[in-house]
């Protein structure tokens, strides 16, 4: 099966790899680029464990072909913070016990990151609706919602302080 040359920007870096067109973006990231933060949960675009940011949109990378992603700008959980400088969402998920087994967490935080850019002052109801593409089996969402609300306040406070 012939492979195609895939070029993407992943977490700010240009990457190139060979992949069959049918390969799913989640597999390209995990198997070819060793980016294993995004996970595979349901494979039918319901659970959101594979969520990455692609060209400024949250997408389920289990339902994107490598060929479609050619040329795309992709951000994964690995691109959101560094060990010395965690993203506020990462901090708040820790602070508010927004995770248990951790399997949904990369997709959850990556989605929340995009959501808060579009809606920096969400209500709890808006958070629940905006995060409804991500399933969690452990937390019952209550602390995830709390973490995202807290991150929104922190980010808004930081923005105000910067102005």
């Amino acid at each position, binding site marked *: 099966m012939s492979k195609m040359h895939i070029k993407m920007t992943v977490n700010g870096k240009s990457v190139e790899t060979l992949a069959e067109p049918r390969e799913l973006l989640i597999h390209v990231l995990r198997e070819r680029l060793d980016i294993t933060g995004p996970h595979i949960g349901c494979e039918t675009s319901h659970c959101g464990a594979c969520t990455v940011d692609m060209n400024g949109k949250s*997408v389920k990378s289990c339902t994107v*072909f490598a060929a479609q992603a050619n040329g795309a700008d992709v951000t994964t959980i690995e691109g959101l913070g560094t060990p010395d400088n965690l993203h506020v969402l990462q901090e708040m998920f820790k602070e508010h016990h927004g995770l248990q087994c951790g399997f949904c967490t990369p997709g959850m935080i990556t*989605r929340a990151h995009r959501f808060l850019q579009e809606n920096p002052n969400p209500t709890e109801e808006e958070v629940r609706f905006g995060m409804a*593409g991500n399933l969690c089996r452990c937390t019952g969402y209550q602390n995830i919602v709390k973490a995202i609300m807290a991150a929104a306040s922190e980010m808004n406070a930081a923005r105000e302080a910067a102005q």
Partner: protein
Amino acid sequence: MIPGTFEYYRPSDLPEAIKLLATHGDDARVMAGGHSLIPMMKLRMADIPHLVDLQDIDALRGIEVSSGTIRIGAMVTQHELIADEALLKAAPIIREAALQIADPQVRYVGTVGGNVANGDPGNDMPGLMQCLDAVFTVQGPDGARDIAARDFYEAAYFTARADDEILTSVSFKPQPGGYAYEKQKRKIGDYATAASAVLIARDGKVCSGASIAMTNLSDTPIYSDAASQALIGSDLGADAVSAAVDAALAEIDPAEDGRGPIEFKKHVAGVILRRAIERAISRA
């Protein structure tokens, strides 16, 4: 869940895409957001040797709202529909419906064209477009032609679009009256157990225009002219609403599935439709 192999094409303009369809015939299929097609390919229920990705074709993008008509490119996503303020003013039912489709991630990539063109009775946009009396523009080797949304759907996954044609846009008139898109589903991400799109115009106390369509209650969307006529000219009172509901229910033919048996779906269809009509009236 691993898809089979295919040749991939990403044409940069419409003529190139149409040419690819002409070359490969039945073996080729166009893909917009892919969120209906890719799961089918992963389940190996769809085998597509030649896959034509439309993402680079700028002519398929954009929302144009003018006083007389609204045109939405086939590659416009649900997310873009929701975010467009001019569209909200001109046809608020679009946002109301789009917010009830799938989930945030899917709405970022799911397109109007994909939703209306593939003929899946579970999709919400076909019924909505029939309610709006939209026109679908398709383009093929012999040029472009328009097909009324109300004439487009023949059976599940069978439409009036020829295999070598690409649906390029949908168009409809602005809708100033009352509106509602009501949908019952089991959870976020589900197809409708029953859904209904309703538009109502009122002239004083008299209903001057009405349009009623339903989703996932037959193997095609159902536009009910009889239900619409039951309201037009009426005072929009309880009797007229009941007459409209009865007329619409006479036209549905739901199938049993995980959402419930036929008897249940018929009952829920009536409830959902009544709620949609009443909400549309309250907004008219």
